[in-house]
């Protein structure tokens, strides 16, 4: 499919998105079935049908037509919505995606169309719509589909003049299919207009020179005719009702303000589809620009006039950076949205009633993170539903509501995004995990791990306490995959669980941005960058009174005790003798923490260059950057630095 027509490619992509949206619409319908919602589903189906037929996806159009029929009935109030209908609709939507993925009519699509699943699906749809199964397969559907015989209403005569735009053929438009579809509406008489056709020597085969005039007798309203041409929005189109009197002159301008074509145009103006690699390229270039700009501002400090220009450039670069980053940021809702279907399907499969609650879907996170997040989250939700949530009987016995709840939430904290999956199920069985871990040789039988250490074991490869493997989970593969993905994103996982009450798994992920605002600090001769997003305030060490109380090192800042870390101690350097020193107060795990440095140098835009494999495992750093003077500075990753240092301190304490 290398020589695929770009217009067809665009159709496939757009249809894919439309069908993704359809899933949400259908799921919404289950809770809220107002007419607007039903109309939206109907419109979606109609769009796919129309454009599918036009771009050579006849099988898809045929199938969609029957699906659309069902919703037509719902719209007319002749059919009510229930769980079974939603089930069927979701399956029908999946089938549409499968047909779409065949890339057009061909042996693959035909095989799919004739597969037992497809036939069963159609039979189920016909059962709803009351149509006959014999119509199911074969024949030219788009035409047959909208056969006027079924419809009521008086016959009207329409005069249609249709002249495709000269380049329309090149864009994949198929006037033959449109005219055929028109034939499906009723009795039609078509004549071609060849007035614009040049001589053979001037004829360009890829251009369209023809126009058509059709007289259609149909009981369908004008909108049905317009719908046929909905995607030929560049074409000259005029639809006029023919009176018994002599035919009126066709006015080619009349199509100008028709809503269907206007809508399509507006939609394409709203957004631009850009390959992600191009965004990455912009990001790389921007990174270079920021570094060059930092060098420039360093050089300009001697010249006042130059400095003002440099400041202007700095402002512009910052604006450009923010705009570029915002392009890459997507609301996490995109991932969360997919899980409604997962939960619904699993509920049926496992015979458990589970509600999914999502919160903080508006939290934004870099596209690269989003792309890799979906799979681990599915694993975790499956786990929660299969192992976490108990059967309805067990829940009733434990005095819990029979309906289980899985709560998926996201929020930003400093430079991290926290994603939490919480269920109100049985909780983790620490003893069972311990037993299994000893059996698997992950733990010695004498070891006395803390509960949280035990819980971390569920992420070990192949670890599962499930007594039987279900189709959903229990093979012990999932959580291992979760951890490796989160590790690769430089994130971490925390597990909290209470037996009988539920389990909460929290993923901490950096908002891995390629460029961040950084605070430059000095320690000895070395310069480090602390992400500004994590910084709360900076104080002088002298102003903050050191307080040593039962071995814990705390600073007293405005009457609040704040634990602190001496960075030279954390880095294993000899203690600084400089005075006065400064403290950068950072947020970490929801608490405040002081980092003691020699001096604070100022802010800068920091381009994060990730470490090579030689330094990837060094804790406490998010990467490195190049400063204006060309030197390399390390970027401190507050969370991992603090966690490690505090853990070491905790280890030392009992020994001391």
């Amino acid at each position, binding site marked *: 499919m290398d020589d695929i027509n770009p217009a067809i490619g665009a159709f496939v992509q757009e249809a894919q998105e439309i069908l993704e949206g359809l899933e949400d619409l259908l799921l919404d319908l289950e809770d809220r079935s107002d007419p607007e919602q039903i109309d939206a589903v109907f419109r979606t189906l109609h769009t796919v049908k129309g454009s599918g037929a036009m771009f050579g996806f006849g099988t898809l159009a045929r199938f969609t037509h029957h699906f659309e029929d069902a919703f037509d009935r719902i719209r007319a109030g002749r059919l009510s919505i229930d769980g079974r209908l939603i089930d069927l609709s979701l399956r029908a939507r999946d089938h549409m995606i499968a047909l779409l993925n065949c890339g057009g009519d061909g042996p693959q699509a035909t095989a799919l169309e004739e597969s037992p699943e497809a036939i069963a699906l159609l039979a189920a749809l016909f059962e709803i719509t009351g149509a006959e199964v014999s119509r199911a397969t074969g024949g030219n559907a788009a035409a047959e589909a909208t056969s006027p015989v079924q419809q009521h209403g008086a016959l009207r005569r329409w005069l249609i003049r249709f002249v495709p735009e000269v380049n329309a053929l090149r864009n994949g438009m198929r006037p033959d299919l449109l005219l055929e579809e028109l034939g499906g509406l009723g009795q039609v008489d078509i004549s071609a207009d060849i007035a614009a056709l040049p001589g053979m020597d001037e004829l360009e085969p890829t251009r369209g020179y023809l126009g058509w005039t059709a007289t259609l007798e149909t009981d369908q309203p004008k909108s049905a005719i317009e719908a046929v041409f909905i995607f030929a929005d560049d074409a000259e189109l005029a639809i006029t009702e023919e009176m018994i009197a002599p035919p009126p002159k066709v006015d080619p301008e009349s199509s100008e303000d028709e809503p269907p074509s206007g809508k399509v145009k507006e939609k394409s103006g709203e957004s631009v589809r850009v390959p992600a690699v191009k965004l990455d390229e912009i990001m790389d270039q921007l990174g*270079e620009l920021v*570094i060059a700009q930092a060098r420039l501002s360093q050089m300009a400090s001697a010249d006042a006039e130059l400095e003002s220009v440099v400041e202007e450039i700095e402002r512009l670069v910052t604006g450009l950076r923010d705009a570029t980053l915002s392009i890459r940021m997507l609301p996490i809702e995109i991932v969360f949205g997919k899980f409604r279907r997962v939960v619904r399907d699993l509920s049926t499969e496992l015979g458990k009633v589970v509600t999914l609650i999502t919160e903080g879907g508006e939290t934004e996170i870099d596209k690269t993170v989003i792309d890799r997040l979906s799979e681990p989250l599915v694993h975790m939700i499956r786990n929660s539903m299969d192992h976490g949530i108990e059967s309805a009987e067990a829940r009733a016995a434990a005095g819990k509501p029979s309906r289980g709840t899985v709560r998926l939430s996201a929020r930003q904290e400093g430079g991290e995004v926290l994603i939490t999956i919480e269920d109100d199920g049985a909780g983790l069985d620490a003893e069972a995990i311990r037993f299994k871990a000893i059996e698997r040789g992950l733990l010695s039988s004498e070891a006395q791990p803390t509960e949280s250490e035990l819980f971390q074991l569920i992420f070990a490869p192949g670890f599962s306490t499930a007594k039987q493997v279900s189709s959903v989970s229990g093979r012990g593969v999932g959580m291992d995959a979760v951890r490796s993905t989160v590790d690769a994103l430089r994130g971490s996982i925390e597990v909290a669980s209470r037996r009988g009450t539920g389990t909460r798994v929290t993923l901490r992920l950096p908002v891995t941005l390629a460029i961040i605002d950084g605070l430059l600090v000095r320690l000895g001769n*070395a310069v480090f960058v602390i992400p500004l997003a994590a910084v709360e305030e900076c104080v002088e060490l002298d102003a903050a009174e050191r307080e040593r109380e039962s071995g814990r090192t705390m600073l007293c800042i405005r009457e609040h005790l704040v634990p602190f870390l001496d960075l030279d101690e*954390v*880095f*294993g*350097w000899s203690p600084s003798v400089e005075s006065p020193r400064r403290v950068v107060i950072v947020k970490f795990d929801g608490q405040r923490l002081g980092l003691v440095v020699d001096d604070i140098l100022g802010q800068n835009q920091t381009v994060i*260059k990730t*470490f*090579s*494999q*030689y*330094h990837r495992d*060094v*804790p*406490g*750093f998010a990467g*490195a*950057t*190049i400063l204006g003077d*060309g*030197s*390399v*500075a*390390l970027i401190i990753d507050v969370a991992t630095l603090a966690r490690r240092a505090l853990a070491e301190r905790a280890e030392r304490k009992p020994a001391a």
Partner: protein
Amino acid sequence: MTKASCQSSSYEMVLIFRLSGEAFAISVSRVHEILDPIPVTEVPNASAFAPALVNVRGAIVPLIDIRQRLRMQPERPSNSTRLVVLELPVAGIPTRLAIMTDAVEEVAETDISALEPIPDLGSRWPEQYVSGVIRHGSDLAIFLDTENLFCPDPERVAQS
């Protein structure tokens, strides 16, 4: 350098450099550039094998201390100290890295097929990091096994 290519008679250009008076050779195809000393940035808590980072024309490149693996004592920088920037696959990933040498001597053509094994007796070089010795004038130069020498994980080298 794979063992297979060592057996056929083939001439190859090598870069000869010195560490504490000893001559070492590395295939020129791995060498990206040679630089005068530049400021280095120490990475706290990093291994002694990869202690720092340097800025090579806008790219942040790890500085590798191969003396660690060759069991050699550190040396003070002198006028002849040079940074050799290499580009080679490390664990399958194309990687740029830098090593500090006491002096860069010359680029020489050498017959790789004449690579001699290091005599077991009296060899102070860990065998997994050297491919053999080559003649270098009246002297000998140690031909380094770059694949093992720059492997980030020493345990993997021990196994291979």
